[in-house]
């Protein structure tokens, strides 16, 4: 137990630290370089949830995330280089430079995201449906979204469908108290988000992110239940965004959240807490230092690679856009009997009109 605890603590610290440093370095690089030409939503302060999730996931699991997605991309194990290249708009990006940060995806790693609030919930219902439909596998789908997504009607449809079909899906709601610059009280009279999900028959729980080890332990049980077919679960994680809503700049000059609130949140930084927990769990200082150094090196190396990589070419877009053809099963049929694939038909006199 002590050993697992230490291993988990190290893994959690490693992932949180990687996410934090990725964001910090990108923020620092954004303007001076002026080469990342896409809106980016950073997750500084919100690293605990993706890190805790990363310990639970398998390759055949699927993540459908909102746009504040960098942490979840990394949590799914997708390559940092391809992510940063994507931000630089390079051909080596995980989407070939077409998506940028807001619609970051890595198909091979079953990771997807998008800017439209509320979208991920329904899509994850679809991938969970496919996982269940196929039988055999024990893959699960994770929908990641902010508290703002709980304003959108589609989210309730998705919760209902998931419960109705008892799908293997984790709804992971990051409640950072704000939707962009709109505080919760301007968006609802009642803020008990898990009560809303529970009313549809979805199992629920609310947890703070101040102790990432506990968060990971809770997720471990939840995900195991989901894998075993006990149906969907909504986990609301109470968290806080240290950085601005979008872009590398702080937006605190817009006075949409109290200074004291921001300060208090930063003072109880989950990453700092994780560092303490790791030490307490017996992780050696050397290991922690190695993590710190390696995270920075990974990020810088990805940035160097991204800068050196070629841009995609305009002419390649046509290939992507061209119709994508037909399923193999049909292509076989066509080969077997080409006449079945009718380009046209004999003149037809239709009756009755």
């Amino acid at each position, binding site marked *: 137990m002590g050993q697992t605890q230490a291993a988990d603590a190290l893994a959690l610290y490693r992932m949180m630290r990687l996410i934090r440093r990725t964001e910090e370095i990108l923020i620092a690089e954004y303007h001076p370089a002026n080469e990342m030409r896409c809106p980016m939503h950073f997750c500084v302060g919100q690293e605990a949830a993706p890190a805790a999730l990363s310990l639970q996931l398998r390759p055949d699991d699927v993540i459908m995330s909102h746009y504040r997605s960098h942490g979840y991309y990394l949590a799914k194990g997708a390559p940092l280089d391809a992510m940063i290249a994507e931000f630089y708009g390079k051909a080596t990006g995980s989407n070939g430079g077409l998506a940028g940060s807001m619609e970051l995806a890595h198909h091979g790693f079953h990771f997807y995201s998008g800017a439209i609030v509320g979208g991920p919930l329904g899509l994850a219902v679809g991938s969970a449906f496919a996982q269940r439909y196929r039988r055999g596998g024990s893959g699960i789908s994770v929908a990641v979204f902010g508290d703002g997504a709980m304003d959108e009607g589609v989210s309730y449809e998705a919760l209902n469908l998931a419960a109705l079909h008892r799908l293997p899906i984790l709804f992971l709601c990051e409640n950072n108290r704000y939707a962009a610059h709109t505080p919760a009280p301007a968006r609802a009279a009642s803020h008990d988000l898990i009560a809303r999900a529970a009313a549809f028959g979805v199992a629920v729980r609310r947890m703070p992110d101040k102790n990432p080890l506990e968060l990971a332990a809770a997720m471990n049980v939840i995900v195991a239940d989901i894998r075993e077919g006990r149906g969907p679960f909504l986990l609301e994680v109470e968290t806080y965004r240290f950085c601005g809503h979008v872009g590398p700049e702080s937006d605190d000059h817009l006075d949409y959240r109290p200074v004291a609130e921001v300060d208090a949140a930063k003072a109880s930084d989950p990453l700092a807490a994780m560092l303490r927990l790791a030490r307490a769990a017996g992780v050696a200082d050397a290991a922690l230092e190695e993590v710190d150094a390696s995270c920075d090196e990974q990020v810088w190396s990805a940035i160097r690679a991204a800068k050196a990589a070629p841009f995609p070419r305009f002419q390649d877009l046509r290939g992507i856009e061209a119709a994508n053809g037909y399923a193999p099963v049909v292509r076989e049929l066509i080969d077997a009997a080409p006449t079945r694939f009718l380009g046209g038909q004999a003149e*037809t006199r239709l009756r009755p009109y």
Partner: protein
Amino acid sequence: MSKASAVELASTPRAGRATRLSFGAAVNAAQRQAMELDENVFVFGIGADGKAGIFGSTAGLKERFSARRVFDTPISEQSLTALAAGAANAGLRPVLVHQRFDFLLYSADQIANWIGPWRYISGGHATMPLTIRAIVGKGWGQGPQHSKSLHSWFAHLPGMQVVMPGSPADAKGLLLSSIFSNDPTLFIEGRSLYAMEEEVPDEPYFIRLGRALVRRPGKDVTLVAIGSLVPGGLEAAEQLAAERIEVEVVDLRTLVPLDLETVLASVGRTGRLVVADPGWRDFGAAAEVIASVCERVGPALKAAPQRVTWPHRYAPTSAPLEAGYYPTSADIVRACKSAVAGI
């Protein structure tokens, strides 16, 4: 504009047995065979598993394939569409059915913001092989909320295919191709076509999306007919033949991909263009056909192109108003005549 090239009717011979089927039965048969061919195909929508089976179009499928692959749903168009999208991305081939086109408007976000861009946005890695069937109501006071056909909306979205069959045999072959296409497809069925019968080949067959069909040759005017106006177009052509006006009827079959080649070849022969489109006039699909042709042939047309569409208003419910609302073969006859006269 040259009239040199002879009319080429695509006339691939059909092998095997055929059975006289209604449009609805042909749609049903296409889904049944698609599900037989591929375990990944499933069909869902409000009433999909019921005895009535969405005007018969899904009747018997649940009994044949079980509730796992054919199921009823809550009234949740948005998330049902998202379910289809998420499942398609994972390699399934969902068929989502809407009893009325109007209902799918709840899912415009899912289609325009997610499904349309999905493959492109992924850099070409992901795919989205789903089919959305939408039935367009017509007549008996369907009124403003049960008779819309916004096919031009979805044809305007890059990445979406839009299919509009005009006969039972086409419905079957085009639906099979839609289901097995690797791109997302909106498949639009005119409710008024449901009773139409035709010989339909028994075997599964596939009509390649993006191939218009010259249903009748003619040298005087090209009539591009779409979906539920195909029968009226053929009727008009027959009437006009009696008056020695030869109409070439091009059944467009699919708005996207748009088979402009076939249309241009026909207009090249006739020099005149009428478009019959079962939707609203302004900013609709007929405008695209006309604009595409005019861009290419411009002043070479012998007469101004014409549109025969629904008037630019919602369908009124009152029976006499409704009777005057939908264009008929007589309206197409009038348009063709004026095109021919307007040399």
